[in-house]
């Protein structure tokens, strides 16, 4: 493998495990630890408070999602995709719909395309605001940023409920469009929300971005180099925080993303602060997309002429979207029946989690929690 990109020497001293075990304090953080974002466990070996070894243990939330999906019709899996990453069910829906639409050529009506973009970007706002809140909670702020984030999230979830009937498990996308059109007045309410959102972001930035404690806690902590990120298959804001310009909305331009003008913020240092700031900046870009989409959205149907019984011919497809956490892909093998032969999810949370030990070793246990928070995982997606 001489062609592989050189990986920078790790910032810690490598030691053989048996030598180092003697005086170490072994702490099992999780699965019921307040800041492991669900039922996740980290087996941590500590030298004082410094992490020497960290072993992520997951699977506590394994729900057999992929195998279950192989036993039921294509449509029946759609509500299960909501439960993968339960913060952004809309993006999950889209990824699955995108894969299934490749199996059967169903045209998506124009209005549905716009609504999909609107929903996906609103989801991104939901995810990034709550992530920043949770991240600050991990840093030890007593819920104030989290509740400010949730205040805005509530409003977006209200919109989701008005449109789809559920706040989090929306189950809104269908192969070839959307389940139903948004109710009357919904677009105006969304416009009002999008118009007021920058004010909230300003408040958030004033509250957080210059706070010395946050700066000191997050800068130069958990540094992930661009080469390391690429080698580990990291995607999403975490990859972009390491300075790699890779955004599927630009690369694939799926849906109608090529019609919107927006920028992709890039970090330089690849530390926790960059990961946090990239998300803050991405929210502003999402708002730009939302403004354009809400301006241009046409009238019309939201559902194409999808067949009542979804029975694709034998084929292999891979559909992926830029979910707020990274590249979310669905890999489907159809065998000509109403059920997929193979159904595979590429979860961004799980793959972003693989670098956790590399990021944490050499930092203190308090930093390990912060680094985990900055990776942005949802255990529903990690374990599936």
């Amino acid at each position, binding site marked *: 493998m001489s062609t592989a990109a050189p990986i920078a*020497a*790790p910032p*810690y*001293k*490598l*030691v053989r495990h048996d030598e180092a075990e003697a*005086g170490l*304090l072994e702490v099992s953080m999780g699965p019921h630890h307040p800041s492991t974002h669900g039922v996740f466990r980290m087996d941590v070996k500590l030298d004082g408070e410094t992490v020497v070894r960290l072993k992520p243990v997951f699977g506590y939330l394994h729900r057999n999602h992929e195998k279950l999906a192989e036993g039921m019709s294509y449509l029946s899996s759609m509500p299960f995709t909501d439960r993968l990453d339960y913060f952004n069910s809309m993006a999950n829906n889209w990824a699955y719909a995108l894969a299934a639409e490749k199996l059967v050529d169903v045209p998506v009506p124009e209005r549905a395309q716009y609504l999909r973009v609107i929903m996906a970007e609103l989801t991104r706002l939901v995810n990034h605001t709550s992530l920043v809140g949770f991240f600050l909670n991990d840093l030890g702020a007593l819920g104030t940023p989290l509740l400010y984030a949730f205040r805005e999230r509530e409003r977006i979830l209200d919109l989701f409920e008005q449109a789809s009937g559920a706040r989090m498990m929306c189950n809104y996308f269908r192969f070839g469009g959307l389940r139903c059109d948004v109710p009357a007045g919904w677009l105006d309410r969304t416009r009002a929300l999008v118009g007021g959102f920058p004010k909230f972001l300003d408040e958030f930035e004033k509250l957080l971005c210059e706070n010395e404690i946050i700066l000191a806690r997050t800068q130069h902590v958990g540094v992930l180099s661009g080469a390391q990120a690429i080698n580990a298959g990291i995607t999403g804001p975490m990859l972009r925080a390491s300075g790699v310009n890779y955004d599927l909305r630009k690369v694939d331009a799926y849906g109608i993303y090529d019609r919107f003008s927006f920028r992709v913020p890039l970090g330089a240092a690849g530390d926790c602060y960059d990961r946090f700031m990239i998300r803050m900046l991405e929210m502003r870009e999402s708002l730009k997309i939302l403004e354009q989409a809400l301006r241009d959205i046409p009238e019309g149907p939201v559902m194409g002429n999808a067949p009542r019984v979804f029975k694709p011919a034998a084929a292999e497809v891979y559909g992926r979207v830029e979910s707020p956490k990274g590249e979310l892909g669905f890999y489907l093998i159809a065998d000509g029946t109403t059920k997929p032969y193979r159904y595979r999810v590429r979860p961004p949370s799980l793959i972003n989690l693989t670098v956790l030990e590399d990021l944490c070793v050499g930092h203190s246990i308090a930093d390990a929690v912060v680094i985990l928070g900055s990776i942005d995982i949802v255990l529903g997606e990690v374990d599936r």
Partner: protein
Amino acid sequence: MIEQVAFYILSAVAVLGALLAVSRRNLVHGVFALLLFFAALSGLFVMLLADYVAAVQVLVYIGAVGILLLFTIMLTEHVTGDDLRRLGVRGWFWGLLLAVAVPAVLILPAVLNEKSAKAAPIVVAQGNPALANNATQANTVKALGKVLMEKYVVPLEVLALLLTAALIGAVAVAHAPEKDASGKDTPA
């Protein structure tokens, strides 16, 4: 009467604390017992109307020395307090000798000076501390300060210098190996 009862209680607690401190095999328990002893001692100081010394006793011995001892234990591998081996009994003779010698040396000057002490009897404060003369109380701190800064100013400064030197030395000793390691070691 109340002060007699208090005296006996405090003395009993002090003795108990001291005994526990030397007899407990668990290091942390030992330290806590020692701190109990210190606390009782500071109570005794209060009874002697030396409330400044009592306060200093609490501040320095419980607040600082005790914490220092706990720190030392935490730096060892016996943080959790278990798997402590029984101490060897080989040096019991020297230990006993030392135990006898220290009080002897401490008591000796008092015994030797007994005659002169008779000439100028030590005034033992009596009576209820709460009702004691306000003037004596107010003057303890001032008098102590005066003595330290006038009569014993040179020994005080020397002691301070010594302690500072010891502190710097300790920091230097603690830092030395790390410098070597960071200089030589490369990621293996």
